[in-house]
């Protein structure tokens, strides 16, 4: 697995510029690309979320706003320009800052959250070679960077000088810090088996053996613990207690409006995509074709769907399915209470994860792969 950064430097070498300048140039291209990915992802995901919600709730969802004169009529893609219109509205909206708020921190907070999501994207592989920088400690880096966002949430809640925001921030901090532990422990399980923190190595291990979700009963359980925990870490229903709109108005975002609020939104959907990609890479074989795994009774000609070119397609297919499941959760489940959330984390998930860790170590010991 080589990173896109090295590739870009090579690509730009024809200009004959100094290496330093090439590096500076090469850094900016993926940065822009990541930003574009975040924006496009948020735009599409918001639209899809609203449509998914609408169809689950027996209504139509956005139907009015068109794009380039195309409205979609009464068909299911109607109102396709809605999120773009929303984005324009948010960007042109008045930015309200309460009188007694800590104005500097209130401005800083959305950007810290954004930076958290942005930095995480650097190590997120979209396909075998499509990653900005291929870290040796990739998976650990992702865990580390996704914990930056929580500081932004706390600051946003505190600086708004609003009691609802403060409650939201307190809940968010407790929730995210807690749920990082089961996430770390489940990923550690995979790391123990694969013997590497590098995401490319982990996928390669799955190519050589089998997908982690079906590797052993323990990794099977671990996938679900991971998925539920990341739903909690991204503050989605049923764990959306930091912004619980029926309790805390909008939680830590209560006082935000306009552009800053749009950044929160951008980061939320970016985080959803990140955790889904990580889940698909770590547990669901990443860019490996599912057809190669289930190659019983599949015509030979279908094997064309396997291969490095289609890696991006498979990663995104698996990740977007998980994103859809998160949306599905949101429109189906009620919300947990704070103490129930903590109970679930500390008294259910963490003991399960530790037991999992123990048993998977024994499993590996017996199958003799851990000390190859």
């Amino acid at each position, binding site marked *: 697995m080589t990173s896109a950064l090295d590739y870009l430097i090579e690509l730009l070498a024809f200009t004959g510029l100094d290496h330093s300048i090439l590096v500076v140039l090469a850094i900016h291209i993926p940065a822009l690309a990541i930003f574009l990915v975040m924006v496009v992802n948020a735009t599409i995901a918001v639209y899809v979320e609203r449509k998914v*919600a609408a169809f*689950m*709730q*027996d*209504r139509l969802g956005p139907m009015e706003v068109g794009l380039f004169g195309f409205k979609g009529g009464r068909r299911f893609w109607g109102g396709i320009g809605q999120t773009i219109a929303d984005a324009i509205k948010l960007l042109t909206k008045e930015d309200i800052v309460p009188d007694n708020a800590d104005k500097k921190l209130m401005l800083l907070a959305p950007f810290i959250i954004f930076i958290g999501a942005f930095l995480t994207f650097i190590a997120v592989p979209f396909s075998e070679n499509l990653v900005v920088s291929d870290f040796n400690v990739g998976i650990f880096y992702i865990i580390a960077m996704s914990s930056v966002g929580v500081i932004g949430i706390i600051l946003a809640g505190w600086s708004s000088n609003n*009691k609802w925001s403060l*409650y939201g921030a307190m809940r968010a901090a407790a929730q995210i810090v807690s749920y990082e532990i089961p996430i770390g422990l489940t990923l550690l399980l995979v790391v123990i088996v694969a013997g590497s923190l590098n995401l490319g190595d982990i996928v390669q291990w799955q190519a050589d053996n089998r997908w982690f979700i079906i590797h052993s009963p323990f990794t099977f359980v671990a996938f679900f613990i991971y998925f539920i925990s990341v739903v909690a870490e991204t503050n989605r*229903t*049923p764990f*959306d*207690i930091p912004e*619980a*709109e*029926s*309790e*805390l*108005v909008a939680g830590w975002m209560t006082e935000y409006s306009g552009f800053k609020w749009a950044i929160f939104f951008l980061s939320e959907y970016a985080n959803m995509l990140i955790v889904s990609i990580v889940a698909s890479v770590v547990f669901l074989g990443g860019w490996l074709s599912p057809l190669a795994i289930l190659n019983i009774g599949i015509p030979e000609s279908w094997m064309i769907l396997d291969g490095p070119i289609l890696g991006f397609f498979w990663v995104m297919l698996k990740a977007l399915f998980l994103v859809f499941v998160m949306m599905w959760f*949101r*429109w*189906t*489940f*009620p*919300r*947990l*209470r*704070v*103490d*129930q959330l903590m109970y679930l984390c500390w008294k259910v998930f963490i003991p399960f994860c530790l037991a999992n860790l123990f048993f998977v170590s024994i499993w590996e010991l017996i199958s003799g792969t851990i000390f190859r």
Partner: protein
Amino acid sequence: MYKILDKSIIGADEMVLNMGPQHPSTHGVLRLKIVTDGEVVSHIEPIIGYLHRCFEKHCENLSYEQIAPFADRCDYLAAMHMGHAYAISVEKLLGIEELPSRVEYIRVILAEFQRISSHLIAIGVFGLDVGAITPFTWTLRDRERIIDLFEQVTGARLLYNYIWPGGLAHDLPPTFVNKALEFLDYFEPQIEEYNNLLTTNKIFIERSADVGVMPKDVAINYGVTGPSLRGSGMPFDLRKDEPYSIYSKFDFDVPIGEGLMGTVGDSWDRYYVKVLEMKESIKILRQALPQIPDGDVQSALPKKIRPKKGEIYSRYETARGDVGFYIRSGGKNTPTRLKMRSPAYCNLSVLNEISAGWMISDVITVLGSLDIVLGEIDR
């Protein structure tokens, strides 16, 4: 009982939190002054009156006929019930004993439809309060069909002014019975859908069972009535205990909270009683719809309502509980004093008693399970 936090172990300063009047879950313009210790609520003081529209003062200056639409506006989610309750109280004041049976049948049918529609809102909003959004849109979808029926009958969708003292504004449209039966056939399986989506959801049960337990004696002492009282295991329903109108003709049960998922009288019971009551309403409707007799719905309308001097207190079972009208007549065509005992007003007063010691989220849950309507509380 399950205690969240033993305050003797960890103590901190208390903070006063002002919930409302603009807050998504206070069911209108209710303001709750909550004293919290962290997330745990130690005292709640409901502050009401933001929707006070001087109903009782207005009544002293309006004739009895003119009050009827005002009564509708008190409980805007069950306007038919308020109209019916007011009509019954004025009939009692006038001494009208017998009404044409077509009038009574239509009144009961519409009242039961109204009960279903009001309970649909109640259970949908309760789902919303605990964070489930989809059940709300589903219940509103079905309520819409009831409102369509009402629109056919009365021409209005929210505030009907259809039940008048002594009769009805006008007769039913001829297609009503068929459409109503059609709706019942559609609606009955929907209740199972709600149960699948919300009632038996594990998270929903975790959130509402054992939360805000209201024992029977506390409920009676606070004057709690309606589904909230029945949720505490007290089988008290005016339709059964003191049948007004023609409820004695129908066969139906009074569902009570049995503590299926937790303690008797918890929020889940108060919620589930409403679900069961919708089934009972369907039962009544199925009996009443095919046997509406013929007749004139306006034959008993009094020419002029001018009751003689005296006082009455009449009760009526609305979707939220026991509405009472205390009317003092001075022999004129306007009452000298009309007091409305609103059920949600009394139900709300119990809030501090049953939700202090729980968390902020639970206050919302308990409030949702009490099913208040601010229009009726503030009058």
